[in-house]
């Protein structure tokens, strides 16, 4: 018994700029969580354990075997923890869209710190802030000085901050892929460093819907129509990110009659997801009617209300341009 205990792996879980969904995803593997506990001890998990940062600081370097890191990097504290956990871990795994690509918190890259604070603390309709206070990194009180971590202008992905060994995409990562990853870790069968632990095919490839004739002239937003359940959503005029998104999710959203929004990240060999989707959509929008008298490319494209939010919903910090230009 004692010798078995010694062979157990050490896992750590950490959350940075994320919603907490990735923590739930760990538990979503259901009874397989018992297999995880059988092979590994969890040495750090702020959401579930009372353990302090100083305890991690006290660990020897490379003490943790695998660190599952979810969330993007947007504060000084998260950056510090990313660097600390990198030092203390043999394998650092970017868990979920936010750590891999910046995720939904990464959409804050259309603004900067000042604008985020103004919106969150001053302008939002539900805010009552008579002194117009916004967070400061330090504040003097009679008892001494209070400190808060710095809030960055730009949200970064985990691998823009530290060296990352593996990526597990998804918002949150689908339980089947989490289980596979854990199995690979347990059997010591992890692929080469830098791999994305998901199938190489796109969501479209996994999608059971009928795809017949890819050409559309009218784009519908999700609330505007009730799509037929059997036919490709893109063919019905709903922007579905399936063609530009890596699969592995067993088309959960599409099966629920909702379009793919792209949480799986770009397909392998694709430079960035947004460009891939724009390219795909341009190729089918208005096809067939081009020589007709009604054809107007600008009007067709004007139907897309928010290209950045649609095509880069999870990948803005990892995109080529990374953020909106900051104007002084």
């Amino acid at each position: 018994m004692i010798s078995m205990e010694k062979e157990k792996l050490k896992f750590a879980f950490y959350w940075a700029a994320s919603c907490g969904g990735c923590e739930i995803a760990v538990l979503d593997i259901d009874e397989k969580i018992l297999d995880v506990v059988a092979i590994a001890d969890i040495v750090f998990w702020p959401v579930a354990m009372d353990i302090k940062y100083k305890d991690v600081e006290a660990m020897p370097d490379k003490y943790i075997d695998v660190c599952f890191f979810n969330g993007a990097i947007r504060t000084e504290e998260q950056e510090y923890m990313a660097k600390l956990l990198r030092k203390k871990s043999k394998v650092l795994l970017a868990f979920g869209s936010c750590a891999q690509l910046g995720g939904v918190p990464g959409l804050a890259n259309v603004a900067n710190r000042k604008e985020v604070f103004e919106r969150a603390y001053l302008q939002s309709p539900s805010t009552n802030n008579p002194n117009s206070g916004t967070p400061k990194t330090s504040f003097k009180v009679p008892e001494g000085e209070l400190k808060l971590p710095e809030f960055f202008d730009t949200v970064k992905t985990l691998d823009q901050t530290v060296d990352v060994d593996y990526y597990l995409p998804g918002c949150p990562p689908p339980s089947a892929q989490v289980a596979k990853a854990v199995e690979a870790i347990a059997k010591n069968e992890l692929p080469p460093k830098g791999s994305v632990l998901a199938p190489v095919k796109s969501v479209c490839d996994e999608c059971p819907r009928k795809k017949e004739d890819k050409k559309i002239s009218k784009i519908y937003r999700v609330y505007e129509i009730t799509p037929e359940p059997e036919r490709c959503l893109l063919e019905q005029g709903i922007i579905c990110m399936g063609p530009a998104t890596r699969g592995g999710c067993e088309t959960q959203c599409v099966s629920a009659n909702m379009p793919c929004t792209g949480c799986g990240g770009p397909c392998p060999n694709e430079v960035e997801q947004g460009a891939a989707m724009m390219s795909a959509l341009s190729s089918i929008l208005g096809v067939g009617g081009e020589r007709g008298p009604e054809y107007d490319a600008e009007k067709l494209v004007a139907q897309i209300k928010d290209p950045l939010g649609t095509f880069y919903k999870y990948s803005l910090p990892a995109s080529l341009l990374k953020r909106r230009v900051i104007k002084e």
Partner: protein
Amino acid sequence: MTEFEPKIVGFLCNWCAYAGADLAGVSRIQYPPNIRIVRVMCSGRVDPVFILEAFRSGADGVLVAGCHLPSDCHYISGNFKAHRRIMMLKKLLLQFGIEPERLRIEWVSASEGDKFATVIKDMTEEIKKLGPSPLKVQVEGLIYG
């Protein structure tokens, strides 16, 4: 200080616009030297990645030029696809805080050397007025890599 000279990347299709640029050259038509030409087989070959990468690498403007609409495209409908792609990218660039005027699509046939020269003159002037790309200005402080 010397006057700002914009850097413009031009993606020209093999069959029309590149031949048009060639004609401008052999006809010795004068136009500003601000354009760096990349020949592609079709304007429909221009992936949005090329354009975003050009801006990221410090281009002040990007020109995509191909065969006239509707029927000149050597591959029948590549120019239509390029047109929609550029329209979409212009909307996107605006959201990224880059002036959409920095990205242009033009139709230049193989016989329009003079039109090619006019387009380059016009675009160079317009971008000179806009000034250096705001992206280029902030690249230093960012995490590009």
